[in-house]
């Protein structure tokens, strides 16, 4: 009886083993790079916190950044949140009309959703695109033109000098912008409800479903996202290498990673809030 021919020759087995090794090496390198990046991010966060309380104050630096992050984002955020508010209320109204044609709680439900989650999450995602990209591009350009090295030569830690003013400004202005743009979204939603479904403003303005848990959750999210955007974007900027192409990659990385961090934080904070403040 002849032996069945092996389906894999030694050469193909060797090639397959080599392929597996290559895949393992690639995966291993990816994991190592991710761990290294996470460690660097943590280091940037820890040093930012340290210098926030112990660093040297630069006159006017935080105010300048508050203007850059806050004032220059007002129109962008108002328009996007207003449009999203209108779409959400219109869609919710259509569903309500189909199932229970009673609009008495549409405003209350919408307000709860806005305060607890949507205003902070969507507003911060919008901010990540504008503010995060700006921070990464500015710091990244300084890295590739050696201005960050020049700062270090002047005894100015780049984290203290560049990141801390942006961190403080972002923490303050994210809260302010989210409150403002959330209000815009609510008013836009109210107008939509009135125009499309004849819901009176007095019915729409209903805070009966809102409680302290919603307010605290929304506020914690604002602070967390306000801290996340400059840290993640600053880290992307500081780890820039190469020339203008490197700055481009840093900017992309800042927006993608900030958005990802916001979505993951949203899941974590929301889950914790549902345990701490059960509905």
């Amino acid at each position: 009886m002849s032996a069945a021919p092996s389906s894999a020759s030694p050469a193909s087995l060797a090639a397959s083993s080599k392929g597996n090794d290559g895949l393992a090496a690639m995966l291993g390198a990816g994991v190592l790079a991710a761990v290294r990046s996470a460690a660097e991010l943590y280091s940037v966060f820890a040093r930012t916190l340290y210098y926030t309380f112990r660093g040297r104050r630069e006159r006017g630096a935080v105010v300048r950044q508050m203007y850059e992050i806050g004032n220059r984002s007002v129109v962008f955020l108002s328009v996007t949140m207003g449009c999203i508010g209108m779409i959400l209320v219109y869609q919710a109204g259509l569903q309500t009309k189909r199932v229970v044609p009673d609009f008495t709680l549409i405003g209350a439900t919408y307000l709860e959703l806005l305060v607890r989650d949507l205003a902070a999450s969507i507003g911060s995602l919008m901010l990540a695109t504008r503010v995060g990209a700006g921070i990464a591009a500015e710091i990244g350009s300084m890295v590739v033109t050696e201005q960050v090295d020049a700062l270090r030569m002047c005894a100015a830690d780049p984290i203290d000098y560049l990141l801390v003013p942006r961190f403080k400004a972002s923490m303050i202005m994210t809260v302010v912008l989210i409150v403002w743009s959330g209000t815009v979204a609510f008013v836009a939603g109210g107008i939509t409800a009135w125009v499309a479904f004849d819901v009176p403003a007095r019915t729409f303005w209903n805070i009966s479903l809102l409680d302290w848990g919603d307010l605290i959750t929304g506020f914690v999210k604002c602070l967390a996202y306000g801290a996340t955007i400059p840290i993640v974007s600053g880290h992307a900027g500081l780890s820039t290498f190469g020339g203008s192409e490197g700055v481009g990659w840093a900017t992309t990385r800042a927006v993608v990673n900030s958005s990802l961090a916001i979505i993951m934080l949203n899941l974590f904070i929301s889950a914790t809030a549902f345990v701490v403040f059960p509905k």
Partner: protein
Amino acid sequence: MSIRFVNVVKSFGPKTVLQGVSFEVPAGEVFFIIGASGVGKSVLIKHLVGLMAPDDGEVWLDGEEISRWTERQMFPVRMKCAMVFQHSTLFDSMTCVENVALPLRKHRGMSLEDSLAEARRRLEIVQMGAFGDAYPAALGDGMKKRVAIARALTLDPKYVLFDEPTTSLDPVSARRVDELIARLSRELGVTSVVVSHDLVSIFSIAHRIVMLYRGHVRMIGTPDDFRATTDGVVQQFIHGRAEGPMEL
């Protein structure tokens, strides 16, 4: 009081740029580091002020081994060892006078007003007093370089590292920078380590020269030693010949 590199090794990814570089620079010298582009000259001088750390080897400054010092430990080193970067690297968001004042505020803790007054005085010395309130974007390369030199000298350092100080300057500005470097050594005893490709500078003001080639020290000596050597690689480099034994 000197600078000493001992078997310094530095890699970037798979490429080992410095493969065991050793030499010493005594105090007061104008010392040039030469070599082809990408050979690691700028990388080497950045080790001296902690902007880079070697993978292996030692960097000594004034009798102390500094290569593993922390960022904070490097602050005093950066007070006595200033650096003029290749592209001047003035801070875009600051005026010239604010650029020069920054080391005074950060290193010496001077008040904003005092540091600005001192910075204006420093700018006058490099004939840039009239441009104190201008932003770097409004200046030409030569003017930026002078402001960068004023910023580097504002703390009265014992050592100054110049990274291609005459690159992109017109010949007159370049010779003025050469004269300034020579004067710093002659009158103030400042040790200057100069990375340069500028053959006129090298052979007019250098006390000694080291040539790096393929990650190693190829030759170290006075300008006369370099002129007299029979090493084909060195001869090709210092005469700027396209043909020869030098591998890029």
